[in-house]
């Protein structure tokens, strides 16, 4: 039973760490530019998973004030029953910023392909070293 409890208490951190390092491996070690962008997307979403899992509570309810709590004065509302809303707000901003970043990064990848006719990083490096300018 103890192994089961240890897994149950910590597994979100383990999965977040595995995902983060998968994304980081994709950014560092892959040659293709689009694979690097996929790695960057995995990295960003893993950080969002970390924050959202910090805000979860085992028997809590979603952070919308229920009908019975709406009419109570603020000293009587038990805030420990609601999931923590603050990381949700920060992560909404993070998701929208990540999609804007992916849009601009894909536009840059299309531009690189237009100039160098390839998307592999080592071929691009070779072409730059040999002075290839392309027709664009």
């Amino acid at each position, binding site marked *: 039973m103890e192994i089961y409890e240890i*897994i*149950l208490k910590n*597994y*979100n951190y383990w*999965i977040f760490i*595995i*995902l983060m390092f*998968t*994304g980081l*491996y*994709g950014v560092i070690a*892959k*040659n*293709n530019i*689009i*694979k690097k*962008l*996929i*790695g960057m*997307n*995995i990295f960003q*979403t893993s950080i*969002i*998973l970390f924050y*959202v*899992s910090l*805000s*979860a*509570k*085992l*028997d*809590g*309810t*979603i*952070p*919308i004030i229920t009908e019975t709590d709406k009419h109570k004065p603020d000293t009587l509302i038990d805030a420990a029953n609601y*999931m923590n809303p603050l990381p*949700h707000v920060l*992560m*909404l901003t993070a*998701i*929208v910023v990540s*999609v804007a970043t*992916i*849009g601009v990064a*894909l536009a840059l*990848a*299309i531009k690189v*392909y237009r100039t160098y006719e*390839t*998307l*592999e990083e080592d071929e691009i490096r070779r072409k730059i070293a040999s002075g290839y300018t392309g027709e664009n």
Partner: protein
Amino acid sequence: MSPLLDLIILSMTVICAIGALAVKDLLGASIVLGAYSFLLCLAWAIMGAVDVAFTEAAVGAGVSTVFFVAAVFHTTRETKD
């Protein structure tokens, strides 16, 4: 919030993430990334973050996959690694 269901979905998420980086076809990698975003949205809905799950479903599994497919369409589909 049920931890057992969450554990199953998060394990499938890790498999999708490793798969998105290992597939050799770039169009296939974009589709697997869309599946990864959708599984992550399910995991957040189980954890009670409904706003974040809504946004990730619309943005990650919708618009971001379209952008990736559009970029792959205008560059090349094959890759060596």
